[in-house]
């Protein structure tokens, strides 16, 4: 478990390379919520490219899993928590116009003030939520 940070760094480099390929290749910002959200509410551009992106995003972890590199998601089995969390992430990221990849990775790396403010607020709210759940409900 001590090498988790190394895998984190390696995975991070891959994520950043993915963002660089999309930006330099197609001129798009690699924001997961924007790319998925555009598909859902019809505001998205370039359906074909968007679907190809999703295919890679879902397919690669699937192939790694089949190849024997599995990851346990340890997600909660509380269906109401899943629904509430999903709704909040969906609504929140579209209002904020970005999530961890768009505001975080792509925004911070271009010194965007909006990206920085968004990142501080979602990490802050996440910290408070996790702490409150642990102290209040033992989750």
């Amino acid at each position, binding site marked *: 478990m001590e090498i988790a940070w190394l895998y984190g760094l390696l995975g*991070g480099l891959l994520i950043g390379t993915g963002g660089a390929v999309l930006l330099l290749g*197609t001129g798009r910002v690699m924001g997961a919520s924007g790319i998925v959200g555009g598909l859902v509410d019809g505001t998205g551009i370039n359906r074909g490219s968007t679907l190809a992106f999703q295919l890679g995003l879902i397919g690669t972890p699937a192939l790694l899993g089949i190849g024997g590199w599995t990851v346990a*998601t340890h997600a909660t089995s509380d269906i109401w928590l899943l*629904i509430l969390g999903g709704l909040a992430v969906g609504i929140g990221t579209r209002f*904020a*116009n970005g999530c961890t990849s768009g505001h975080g990775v792509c925004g911070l790396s271009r010194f965007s003030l909006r990206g920085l*403010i968004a990142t501080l607020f979602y990490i802050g709210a996440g910290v408070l939520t*996790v702490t409150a759940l642990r102290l209040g409900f033992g989750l």
Partner: protein
Amino acid sequence: MRAVLSLISGALFGGGLHISGMTDTARVRGFLDIAGAWDPTLAFVMGGAMVPMLVAWRLTRTRVPLTGGAFPAQPTQQVTRPLVFGSVMFGVGWGLVGLCPGPALASLSYGGWHGYVFLIAMLAGMWAVPPLRHALDRHATAA
């Protein structure tokens, strides 16, 4: 060409999220649990991802996208209420479950029913935002 580059980008993104452990909600929630058993992995992921992106943004100054068109305009520096409100709401959902949009998709093939429930709720939330915004705007102008 655009589709091929998008596929490669998505594959790198998904592979990176998988390898880094970011599809494990316990690891993500562990990062947010700074007062508990803090797990710093997410910071390394963010830091690692920043390196190629810093180079990429620098290259955008002197080049054009490979497949034509233009790079995104300079970001506006306007900190708006939807930005703050949305980010707080996103952070609460992120803390509740430990999934954000990228990992929710990346883990879809092995996340079981938990992943599907979260994803469907997330998509419903995204779908609801344009009408919700419209209603809020109308309310704001009426008031």
